[in-house]
């Protein structure tokens, strides 16, 4: 475990500058929106503009999630440090999870900053707050007992979703290394294939998962002026967890026995 934490520390040292830049850019963008939003709200239909724009950093997080796993691995190969990293008495899966942990931390941190930014911009937008507080559905949801637990489950699902996508990137890269010369092409193909398989067999997996205990997210709907409570079971939770674990274990196994660097 000491070795794993040490590896995490090394990963952290290698990525924190990028994290600092991303965080600073998000904060600066949201501050700019926070300043502008009062003016924009005076324009026709302008109330939601700044709030809408404040969601842009989430798109950045989304793109980063798809490519982070791949690039975290490729960085090691390009600098030849893969040789050193994999010569340590640490399993391949441990190497992957140490990278995953740091990527997750970074992406979650940026997401939290972006979410705080949305709240900040919204709170500085005149009228927007009133619009929210006067919405009966929203208020019913916020006041509900399940708001906190649902929030926690949404967060967990979000983190798991990120972990899954990062794992797909790592897995594709590792499979790519088995075929030198065209490793990049193979990685992209594997990436696409994994996604395809997930969509093709996702429904089946969710059907199987429906027999397992699943956490529920509670929401509210106000069709016909009647606030209605709706429950959405988190069916993708167990399948995603399982696939992520399998991807990491298989990729780790390959790394542990064969490095082409």
């Amino acid at each position: 475990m000491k070795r794993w934490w040490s590896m995490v520390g090394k990963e952290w040292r290698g990525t924190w500058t990028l994290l600092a830049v991303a965080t600073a850019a998000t904060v600066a963008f949201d501050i700019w929106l926070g300043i502008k939003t009062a003016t924009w709200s005076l324009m026709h239909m302008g109330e939601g503009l700044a709030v809408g724009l404040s969601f842009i950093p989430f798109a950045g997080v989304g793109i980063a999630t798809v490519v982070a796993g791949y690039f975290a691995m490729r960085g090691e190969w390009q600098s030849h440090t893969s040789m050193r990293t994999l010569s340590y008495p640490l399993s391949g899966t441990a190497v992957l999870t140490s990278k995953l942990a740091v990527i997750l931390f970074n992406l979650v941190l940026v997401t939290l900053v972006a979410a705080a930014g949305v709240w900040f911009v919204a709170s500085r937008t005149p009228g927007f707050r009133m619009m929210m507080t006067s919405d009966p559905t929203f208020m019913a949801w916020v006041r509900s007992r399940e708001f906190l637990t649902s929030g926690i489950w949404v967060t967990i699902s979000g983190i798991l979703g990120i972990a899954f996508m990062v794992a797909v990137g790592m897995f594709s890269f590792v499979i790519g290394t088995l075929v030198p010369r065209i490793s990049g092409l193979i990685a992209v193909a594997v990436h696409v294939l994994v996604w395809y398989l997930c969509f093709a067999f996702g429904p089946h997996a969710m059907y199987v998962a429906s027999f397992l205990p699943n956490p529920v997210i509670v929401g509210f709907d106000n069709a016909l002026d009647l606030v209605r409570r709706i429950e959405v079971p988190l069916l993708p939770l167990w399948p995603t967890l399982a696939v992520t674990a399998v991807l990491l274990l298989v990729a780790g196994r390959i790394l542990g026995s064969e490095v082409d660097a």
Partner: protein
Amino acid sequence: MLAIEMANVHKRYYRSHALRGVNLQMEPGKIVGLLGPNGAGKSTLLKICAGLAHPTTGRVHVLGRDVSTATKGLTAFVPENDTFYSWMTPRQAVAFENSMFSDMDVSDAMDLLRELRLDPDNKISSLSKGQRGRLKLVLAMSRRARVVLMDEPLAGIDPPSRAAILETIASRYRAGEQTIIISTHEVLESEKLFEDVVFLSDGQIVLSGNADELRANRSKSLNEIFAEVC
């Protein structure tokens, strides 16, 4: 218990056949020269022992065990390429190795850094090739590793650094308890260091034995024998 034991080891890559049936028994406590031209399979052989490659067929034992994550902790692998995390300083690199290997001796490493005139607080990215070559050696030789695997430690390095590297291996070698395997195609400079030698050519062992016995039997230097058999 043998330091390294290989039985009929083959290694095929996508298009090449790097090792073609290698049988090898290396006794512990020796400095062994793994000699052969470029592309003979030296790096592949060392990587297999270090657990960085898996033989296509055949069996490999390091210190009597199958190669695994556990044997990685007993061996020190010194790759030919630069593999440092370049944002580290030598001091940080020593600390990091210490966190990974329980047999690292940090104060010994700091002594060796000083002996080899390496500034512990200078970023690795600013070091010359020769300095990096010396740093690689510091990290490997300040461990009490039972097996040290060095891949071309002199390749592409300036003459003073080469001399320093050879002297360090000779003086820091833990005689009796440590096995050092050094692959090289530059035999002339390093041959006095080897107690045993293994000549590898085209993925096969063409000659092996005690260095001084080979010299006595053939009245030739290892370098001359190398030119003959490889």
